């Protein structure tokens, strides 16, 4: 599930090294240089092939069989059966599909916007601003499993969130059992996920903000631009490549939602929070249907690939 992140991230990372300009070197030196380049790329390439390329190819092959995790019978080729089953006779798969997209559709814009807002706030030259950066960043470096367990307690019927609601509204409103109620469970997980990950994207936005030269702002101010005009015409265009990176990484991370579900709700209540990755793990590993799990993973892979390509196309540099 981390597959696409690694494929896309290096391309869209701002500031990748410029191609070498020293063309006039001797042929021998060039060969030596390329040899050391291969040597340097070898460890990464080896690991990528071992843990990325081979599993993807295996998943592709397995998804057309009825392979099982535990079975005395050899796997058998079943053609497109697994894919037909996913779309026609597995309501949980369809529900997972919908939940995954609802989650991504909410998380991507909200998290990106919130992160940008926080980045602008902590980009001020004020005393103690480092503290705020640290505080916003703390959830990112905390294990998501720990965070899920803590929020699980907070979301309980008699947990922290409900007693806060109770106190703040003087008892006028009663919270629900957030994770046990099918209509609030996914929303509750969206809130916690944004809270956890927003700090990371804040830092990325911040690094983008700091590459915009101060002179541009000075010039804009001399032209009489107000704060909103400065943001619209100086900051936002200057953040373009950062925006592309953030858009792609949040989308992929959101589509791969798994840990929070696994720790907090196991897909329930009533499939309200099941997601594609969670369903693939449940089918492929816990219920031991490796072939079917591989088919779900392959569907997921294709979807993520298509979305990433569409995003690349929409945000391409137009010259």
């Amino acid at each position, binding site marked *: 599930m981390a597959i696409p992140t690694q494929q896309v991230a290096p391309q869209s990372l701002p500031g990748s090294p410029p191609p070498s300009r020293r063309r006039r070197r001797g042929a021998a030196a060039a060969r030596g240089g390329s040899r050391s380049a291969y040597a340097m790329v070898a460890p990464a390439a080896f690991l990528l092939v071992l843990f990325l390329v081979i599993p993807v190819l295996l998943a592709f092959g397995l998804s057309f069989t009825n392979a099982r995790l535990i079975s*005395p*019978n050899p796997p058998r080729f079943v053609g497109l059966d697994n894919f037909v089953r996913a779309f026609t006779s597995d309501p949980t798969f369809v529900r997972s599909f919908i939940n995954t997209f609802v989650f991504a559709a909410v998380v991507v814009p909200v998290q990106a916007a919130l992160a940008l807002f926080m980045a602008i706030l902590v980009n001020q030259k004020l005393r103690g601003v480092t503290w705020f950066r640290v505080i916003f960043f703390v959830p990112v470096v905390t294990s998501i499993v720990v965070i899920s367990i803590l929020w699980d307690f907070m979301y309980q019927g008699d947990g922290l969130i409900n007693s806060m609601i109770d106190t703040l509204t003087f008892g006028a409103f009663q919270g629900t*059992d957030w994770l*046990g109620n099918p209509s609030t469970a996914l929303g509750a997980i969206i809130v916690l996920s944004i809270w956890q990950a927003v700090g990371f994207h804040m830092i990325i936005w911040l690094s983008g903000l700091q590459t915009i030269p101060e002179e541009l702002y000075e010039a804009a101010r001399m032209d009489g631009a107000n704060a909103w005009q400065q943001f619209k015409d100086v900051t936002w265009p200057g953040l373009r490549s950062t925006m592309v990176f953030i858009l792609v990484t949040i989308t992929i991370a959101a589509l791969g939602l798994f840990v929070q579900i696994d720790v907090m709700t196991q*897909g*329930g209540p009533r499939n309200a929070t099941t997601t594609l990755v969670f369903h693939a793990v449940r089918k492929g590993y816990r*219920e031991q249907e490796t072939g079917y799990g591989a088919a779900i993973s392959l569907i997921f892979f294709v979807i993520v690939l298509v979305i990433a390509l569409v995003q690349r196309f929409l945000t391409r540099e137009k010259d």
Partner: protein
Amino acid sequence: MSRKSSLTMLAMAAASATVLAACGQAGQNDDGGGGDAGGDGTTELTMWTHSAGNEAELAVYEQIIADFNASQDQYEVVMESFPQGAYNDAIVAGAAAGDLPCLLDMDGPIVPNWAWAGYIQPLGISDEIIDSLLPTAVGRYQDEVYSAGYWDAALSVFARESVLTENGIRVPTVDEPWTVDEFDAALVTLQDAGYATPLDIGAEDTGEWWPYAYSPMLQSAGGDLIDRDTFLTADGALNGPEAVEFFDWFQSLFERGLASDSGTIGNEEFNNDEVALSYTGVWNAMDSLDAVGDDLLILPPPDFGEGPKIGGASWQWGISDSCDAADGAREYLEFSFKPEYIAQFADNQVVIPATAEAEELSEMFGEGDPLQPFVELSQEFAVERPPTPAYPVISSVFERAAKDIMNGADVQSTLDDAVQEIDTNIQSNDGYGF
């Protein structure tokens, strides 16, 4: 910034070096499929347990192993313990890598699956031992014995005698248990008497607890997890009218607030008198006995029509198919089924000893001992979960369906979906050999 990133690099390099070193270490210590010749001419028998962290249980194993190793000089048993949560994964991974130990323990209902998959071989220890054990402490698949255990567990309803008497509720017996209507009425009475949630049914727990605790109730109502005549479909068993009736009642427990899925796993609420009745296992009995004393009642679960039922089969021992020294493993197992060891397991962990002899040696389960009622419950009411290789899937599907119903899903359609899911799985496995 650059100093920071070089520090990060250094930390990552150090971390990966540690991991690699650890892998190398693990590789060296790995004893392969067990049965390697040791340095001094003895054959090593590797043994995996799921009991890491359970000191009481490990202490007994350590003693058995020490006694066995000292009693002969042909074999040497070496134990490795895993935490229960990761244990099945370790076995599956070990089997995939062809690296299982000689001796391994396993939860009763998974035995058919592992036997079918060829992980374990027929047990082959003496019939005398097998015949002396509680039937639910023996794991069978296709009429062949594959595993045997030292104990079984049992579920019951815990209550305080004073609370029942005060509220005019009849104390049920094994011969005359509560009917489901009586049980329901008792819960309503207790709720009116001031218990906000009168019953702790254990719904906050997850995993195997669900089929272990609630599928016997379903059987008592006339339903089942699967059609046990053919083992090919769950249709009619899991979604028939009896099952729907049972789950309607189950759902209404939560709707009416008679039970809930919040709270802590274990028996704390009962011990603190926050709930009046608790549906829980023998392993919690000592704590409740300490908290409640003579007032504690250990009652049979209610009768849903076909008589009360409780789940049987706990952790049992088997021999892996790849074991090179299966004779040694058998010798060890036969040695370990001595009454004094079984009694020690029972008393240390508060579980029911698997033989009558050990029962008498035990300080808790013998005639007249406080936990003796559990022995009777286990003998009278224990049913086994379906002995089919499809069980892991059935278990997972059942848990999800029952939880959805608890959360208010439509009963009939949820059960129909569950049946479809189980049947699809059985078909894609060509009937699992049935």
